[in-house]
Structure formats: C-alpha cells, structure tokens
C-alpha cells in the first residue's frame, strides 16, 4: 500500500509540470496585455519596455517558460503585475482564508449530509424525508452567491445575530498566526472569545458554500442506503438479534459510503474553484478574490500560481479519497 501512495505522490510532479506547460501556453495564446494595463493610460514606450524587462516578458517563449519552471522549484512563482509582489507571498497570505472556508463548508456538508441521508432512507416517505428532499432539490439549484446574499439579508441585516462580512472585525486583532485559520488559532491560544467571533464570521459564508454539496451527499447517501437495506446480509444481521441502531450506524453506513465518496470527490473541485463567488459577497480575503482580480487585469502569473496551488490540493485530496475507497471496501485495497 505504501508503494501505491508513493507512486501517486510521485505522479503528481509530472502532472503539475504538464499543467504549468498547458497553463503557460493558454496564457500566452490568449489575447491580452497585462503590461499595458499595469503601466496605465499614460505609459510611455520606455516604461512599457522597462516593465516588460522586469517581468521577463521580452524573452522568447520557451525561455520564459524555463525560467518560470525553474523558478517554481525555488519558491519564485513570478511577480504579480498588479500587486507588485511575489506571487508566492500573495498566495501564502490568501490561502489560509480560502482553506478555512472550504474546509468548514466541507465539514458541514459531510457531517450533516451523511446522517440525514441515512435517516431519510430509513424513514422513507416520512415528513423528514419529504422535507429533506425538497431542501435537496432547492439546495442544488440555488446559486452560492445568491444564497450568501439571502443569508446576509436574513441573519445579518434583519435578525442581526451574525456579522455581515469579513473574517474578523476591523477594530479587533485576530489571534496570533499559527495555522492562519482564525478559528484554530484562537483555540490554540485558548482564546474562547476570539474563537466565537471567528466562528460567527465563518458561519454564513460556510453555509452558503455547503448547501449544494450537502444536498447531493444526502441524496446519494439516501439512495445507497436504500439499496444496502435490501441486501441479504442486513436480513442476517437482523435475524441474529443485532439492534437496528447498530446495524444502521455501523454496518449499513460503511456499506453505503462508497458511492457517497464518489460524490464527495466530485465536489472538491467545485468547492476549491468557486470560492470567489462567496468571497465576493462576504468580503472574505481569499485566493478566489485574488485570482479574479488578477484575471480582470490580465495578470497571468497569479492566475497560474493560484491554479497550481488548487491543483496540488485537488490531487492530494483525490489521493486521500482513493485511499478511503480502500477503507470502506476491503476488496479494492492495495495490500
């Protein structure tokens, strides 16, 4: 099994190299003039030439690519024409915020979706089932950004129980950075008050992100559970006197997880790539906003950088999910 993990980890490298090549080619093929935009409307040809030199844009393409590739390995991910800062630094600044949001949304979706799926399968056609199926239908169709807006109106404006936007109030100082996740850092520092504030700010954006995956996970879990409940071995477990609770939450749960894992895997890309929609609504300073700003100013390096980071996270997550398949179904293990 160790071989499998190592092989997959090693495979990530050529994939990333291929990715950088593809992204580089796409970036250079597309029309656009970042230097012109950065230099401004009153730019002189000398300024433009100087900027071009500064950002290596005067070299032939293959050399640009090679410089970039070797730079990547040294932590030099290029410069952002817009922020005038190294892309690597920018990413390090914005990544924790996005990760905190994505992980929170993921946890909500999984921790609520799986049990609800189980229960609605057992109590089929009951009130809970109809309610949840309606929520599921609506949840998948609801755009994240609209939901975020509605949540803001409802909970921040009308009810005033949760903050409107941002990660932390501007007048206060966030907890000391250990992980970059305000919630975790607050816990590490033992600061309960800070934890509550960070959590309150995290709540609405996380829910806005979580509803769609929650709905799909719940539906998939329900379908899988219904199928499992019809299996012979469940009858045997009942015939041998095991309690319904034990059968459901220990045995049936594990049997039904495999299909749900697939659905979870499909949402990873959706979650990672779409944070900008929620970050915009809640002024959440994350990678999504950074990348979008770079896109709007035709700034290639940050876009490539962000895409690479997301790709790495995506590939690692897929590896974990593939391993989890083995946990839930011994027949596919890599012994």
């Amino acid at each position: 099994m160790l071989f499998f993990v190592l092989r997959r980890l090693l495979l990530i490298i050529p994939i990333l190299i291929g990715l950088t090549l593809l992204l580089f080619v796409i970036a250079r093929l597309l029309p656009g003039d970042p230097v012109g935009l950065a230099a401004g409307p009153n730019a002189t040809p000398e300024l433009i030439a100087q900027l071009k030199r500064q950002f290596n844009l005067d070299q032939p393409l293959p050399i640009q690519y090679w410089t970039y590739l070797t730079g990547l390995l040294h932590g030099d991910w290029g410069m952002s024409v817009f922020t005038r800062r190294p892309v690597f630094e920018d990413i390090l600044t914005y990544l924790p915020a996005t990760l905190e949001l994505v992980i929170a949304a993921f946890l909500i979706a999984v921790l609520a979706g799986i049990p609800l799926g189980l229960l609605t399968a057992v109590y089929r056609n009951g009130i809970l089932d109809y309610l949840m199926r309606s929520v599921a239908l609506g949840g998948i169709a609801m755009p994240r950004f609209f939901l975020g807006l509605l949540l803001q109106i409802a909970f921040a404006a009308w009810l005033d129980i949760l903050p409107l936007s941002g990660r932390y109030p501007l007048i206060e100082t966030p907890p000391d950075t250990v992980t970059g996740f305000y919630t975790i850092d607050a816990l590490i520092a033992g600061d309960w008050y800070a934890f509550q504030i960070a959590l309150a700010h995290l709540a609405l954006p996380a829910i806005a992100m979580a509803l769609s995956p929650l709905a799909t996970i719940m539906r998939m879990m329900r379908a899988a559970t219904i199928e499992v409940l019809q299996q012979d071995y469940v009858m045997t477990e009942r015939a041998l006197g095991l309690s319904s609770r034990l059968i459901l939450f220990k045995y049936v749960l594990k049997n039904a997880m495999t299909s749900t894992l697939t659905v979870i895997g499909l949402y990873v890309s959706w979650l990672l790539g779409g944070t900008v929609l929620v970050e915009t609504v809640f002024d959440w300073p994350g990678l999504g906003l950074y990348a979008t700003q770079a896109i709007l100013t035709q700034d290639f390096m940050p876009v490539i950088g962000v895409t690479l980071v997301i790709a790495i996270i995506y590939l690692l997550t897929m590896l974990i999910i593939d391993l989890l398949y083995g946990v839930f179904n011994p027949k596919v293990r890599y012994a």
Partner: protein
Amino acid sequence: MTTEVPVAHLKRNQSARLENWSRAFYRFRQSWLSMIGLALVVVLILIAAFAPFIVPHPEQVQGATNTAARFQPPSADAWFGTNALGQDMFSLVVAGSQVSLFSGLSVVVIAVVVGTAVGAVAGYFGGWIDEILMRLTDLLLTIPSLILAMAVAAALGAGVLNMIIAISLTWWPVYARLVRGEVIGKKEEQFIVAARALGANWLRILCRHILPNIVSPIVIKASLDVGFAILTVASLGFVGIGVKPPTPEWGTLLSGARSYMPGYWWTAVAPGMAIFIAVLAFNLLGDGLRDVLDPKARR
C-alpha cells in the same frame, strides 16, 4: 386453388427504438416533479424566445433609464419593482433569460459535440491517440473550471459568444471521459465486429453503430448539466466577466444589486430567483429523464 391465410399485421408501424422512447415518456409522465420540470422548462424557453415582445419596457432593456421612478418596490406597474436607474426589473429579468438560457444550452451542446468527438476517437482507436487525448483531458480536469472559464472569458473580451466559448472549454472534458468509457465498452461487441467484417470504416462504425447506442448516458448527463451551465453563466456575470451592460444578464443584475441591500431587496431577489427557478426546472427535468432512461436507476 389457393386459400387466403390470415396474416398478422402490426397495429402500429413503429420501429422498436421509437417504441422504447414512447414507453419511456409514459414512465416519465408518472412522476409529477418531472412533469413540473418539463412544464417550467417549456415556459422558460418560450419566455426567452419571445422576450423582446413580452417585456413592458423594451427601451430600458437597451439601456434607457427612468430616474424619476428609482427603487420602486414591486407593484402593479412594476411587478418586480425598479432598480437604481428606475428600470423595470421585470423587463430586465425577462430579457436576461435570453442570455442565460441561450448560453447555458449552447455551452452544453458545444461540450457534448466536442467531448463526444474527442472521447469517441480516443476510445475507438486506443493506443497513443487515446493516451495523448486523455492526458490532455485529465489536465484540463485538474484545473478548477470556474477559474479557467473566467480567465479565458476575460482574455477573449466581453460578449456572449466569448463567454460561451470559455465555459465550453472547461465543460467538454467530462463528456470526453464519459463517451470514451462507453465507446470502449461497446467497441468489442459482436455487432461491431460484424460491421467491420462487412467493410465499414471507422467513421461509419462510430456514427452509425456505436454512437446511437450510447445516447442514453449522454442525454442524461446533458440534461442535468444545462442547469449547472446556466449557473456558471450567472457566476461569470456575477464576477463581472462575460456580458457587459446594458445587456441584461441575471448574474450581472444580481451583482449590481448588492450595494442596495437589504433595503431594496427586490433588485437582487428578482434576478436571483430567476436563476434559482431556471436551474431548478432543468434539474427536475434532468432528474426525470435520468429516472426514465438510466437502467440502473430503476427503483
């Protein structure tokens, strides 16, 4: 002398495939949610098609303003109220349906065509063609689709067509994978071997024999995807990429309305609900089609 022998005739001169489809539609009718989806989709398409004739204020759709009537709440005159420029939200939203629906459907159609072509060729020929095409497909799948779509759309410039191209670019890989898998599955079946023995070339085999047999999963996925394509179009609009004002688009309308929350809620709720209902309608329709066409989903 010959006697007349009674011969049995088919009541309806229907091919087996057509009968399959009509039976499938009968099953489809059983689910009222699916019928609602179908009805909504038809209504939406009609609205989008005849939008220029239905809107009460076509001039405002083109960009005319009416600052005297800013921020009117929903009333008998303006069903969805008016926005910051005094424009009738109902007109804007209805007009916006043209962009959203047309774009969404186009994206899926292009993705299906391109993806099927790539996947079919890769699956049928195998070997290094398959390797190269699938490596490319996998790479594209590793890139987060929204970011790629945004980047390409922004670089190509504003406009509906550019946006459709950009989103389609990120959408076709999934179809390529799907079709490749199906083609590989069908490739070794007896009737294909027979066709090859009869001298059919690869194009004929693919188009005439294999593709008609793998229509089901493609149709199912496509119908479920239209809703999400519309969502992606709106997402791009929300972020400010794609269509430029005054062309109304649900995402851009929603984005513009953000500054006026929560007081003038109708400026956001109208386009937001439009997106929601459109996506819901196509999802219900897609679910219904899947329940009827997917042999694995028979309950």
